[in-house]
């Protein structure tokens, strides 16, 4: 089994995710991009796990999925509250912490 194609796919996904996180202004899109990043990592984990014949990779991917679910739950709640308070989900406008 070749590892390359999996790693390439994961790398591509990761780059798309990073691009999304950095340039998208809509908070929900940013969160979705974060999911992309996490899932690219999952692909790596599973691919390496299968490559080495070790279940650890798959188990770890499961953990990542669970944590990602929690993370997106909190993230969406933040976006929702932000929308309620400021009537926008644009992250660029949330800069009250400016020093």
């Amino acid at each position, binding site marked *: 089994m070749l590892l390359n194609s999996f790693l390439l796919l994961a790398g591509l996904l990761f780059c798309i995710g*990073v691009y999304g*996180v*950095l*340039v998208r202004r809509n908070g929900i899109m*940013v969160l979705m991009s974060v999911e992309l990043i996490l899932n690219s990592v999952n692909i790596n984990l599973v691919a390496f796990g299968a490559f080495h014949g070790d*279940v650890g990779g*798959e*188990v770890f991917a499961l953990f990542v999925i669970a944590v990602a679910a929690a993370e997106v739950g909190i993230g969406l709640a933040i976006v929702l509250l932000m929308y309620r308070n400021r009537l926008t989900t644009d*992250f*660029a406008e*949330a*800069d*009250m*912490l*400016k*020093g």
Partner: protein
Amino acid sequence: MSPTVHIAGSLLAAAAESVGGSGPISVDDAGWFLNNAWLIPLLPTVSFATILLLGKRLPGKGAICGIIAVAGSLLLSCGAGVNWITHRDSVGSHDGVPAVHRSLEWLRSGGVDHDVGILLDGLSVMMLFVVSFISLLVHVYSTDYVSGDSRYTHFFAFLSLFTAAMLFFVVSDNLLQMIVGWELVGVCSFVLIGHWWEHRVNSNAALKAFLTNRVGDVGLLIGMTVLFFAAGNTFDTLTITKRIAAGEVGRTAVLVAAVCLTVAVMSKSGQFVLHTWLPDAMAGPTPVSALIHAATMVVAGIFMIARLYPVFWTGMSIEGSSINLLAVVGSVTLLFGGFLAFTQDDIKKVLAYSTVSQLGYMVMALGVGAWTAAIFHLFTHAFFKACLFLGSGSVSHAVHSFNMKTDMGGLRKHMPHTHRTFVMATIALMGLPPLAGFWSKDEILVGTGGWGLFGGTQANGAYTSMLVMGMIGAAVTAAYMIRVVYLTFYGEYRGHGRPHESGLRILLPLYVLAFFAVVAGFLNLPKGFQWLPESWHERFGHYVEPVAAYFPHIGHAKPSWSLALVSTVIALAGAGVSWHYYFRRVRHRSAVERMSLTELPDGPVSRGVVPRAVHTLLVNKYYFDHLYTGVIVRIVKGPLARLAYWFNQRVIDGVVDGTGRKSVVAGRVLYRYFDQGLLDNLIVDGSGRTSDSAGENLRRMQTGKVQQYAAVLFAVSAVIAGVFIMVLAW
């Protein structure tokens, strides 16, 4: 994929085995109820989930479900009790009675097994009974008390979870499980105290309870961690207590653990100085207060000490001493908590401070080595305090207020049943023979070992000061309870409308509890009654106190007729003074002035300077709340720079001046070159200037834009990853 499936399959198999009651665990023939005691916390948990999911579609909007589950738990607990009695008697008392211990492996991490299991001995079986019994009565009571509430179903769901959490805590066999139970109890009390969160006061009270408990939880976590390492990398309660009882663990570590755990108890069980949340927790519905104060939340701390008793016994060197941290915390709490009860107008707050004070008795008893007395007091206190709380709820149900001075008085005529049960529980709390409180309180006083007259009591140490404080506490308790009874039930009615007696679902729990408040004390009659058969003496202690390697060899005090007599006289004296003031003088004055008074208008508080000062101090609750919110919180969030400035001006300069006064010349040189030149200019101002300019430069990085931060994050991690790869490839 197959290994994953295999793991999941084995997990399922393990779960199925545990449900089936067999499995990789040692099963001894202690009896079905003991071996399957994990069902007891499970039932209310299932009820919680059911009520939460199905909610209002259930019969009785979920209340029935909760009642059935808790009743089931009570039945199972009684079965476990019967099994335990048989088990206890079938094993000779000299070679020890092994606890029933079953556990499953939960997970394995870093070479340490984390188990989940049950540990049952007399202590936990007794607690199972108390918790499920009080909880059942509270459930029944609540169906009337909170009927019509908008979150009725939600209330019962969390009542179930509260019960389940406490039961889970009680049966836990390892420290991790205990922490989980401990925190679950805390969360449930938070939810229930803030049940009516629409009012700011209530949600603040809930937050206060939660946050104050977090302070103690730090102690809990540190203490448990210390125990884990000290006892050789294990969380197992039996192993830890056995090793400590056998003296295999270093004294210092045990002492540190004991002190940390004492902090945890101080917050959970409302001990001085972390007691402030407990009276505020009265913002919750009354049945919740009854549950918190009698069976669940606050007794968790007492139970924890009792469960891990070797830690405290060894760590605090309880044997042969006359003072230790636990005893001091308890005795101070029992006294000062009792004083606070005098100035409260809210009937529930009086009872809350009374609980603080009674918990002080229990902690003190544990501190002086009177283990059985403490647990017995927990047992009897659960009945009469639950009765008092539910009684106050019944009163407030009728007058729609908790304020004794403005809205109560003369309720004896309107609410005869509530009055009767309340007075019975009051006498039990005051500790007058032969009601329950007398026996347990007397046993605590005997256990202090401070009584030296007529042969003494031969306890574990000579805690004379604790004995004195306990006796004063008894008089104080009696006095403030007489005040409550007068203000609530006697005199003329001061409120609005026509109060009415509560319904059967409220009165029935009251009568049941009052009955137990009267008779529960006979379970542990001291050995002094020669005309009773030997087998009637100290039944409670015989079945509850562990006789095993995991429990220290504590001495048992000899009951003393003279001490019992003296303590009764003291309690009667406290009651008498209060009775004279309220039932004679205030009542007489009320008749003269033709209005229902609550105190003498020209009483000692309005005349003397000292009484007024004391009164102000008590009304402000020793200024602890001011201390916490005004001083500590402000210092933590306030400008630390000011503190540093103050430190510089007063301490450093002060030191220099002090030296200068002794040798002026040297002082001046020191001042000019060292203090001003080096310290002030270079170090203090210099560091200030440096951080100032650093801040000025660094603040430009703080754009507040999340995505710029993310960009920096990614860039830096890319660089680090690059370096890493290069280093690896080298």
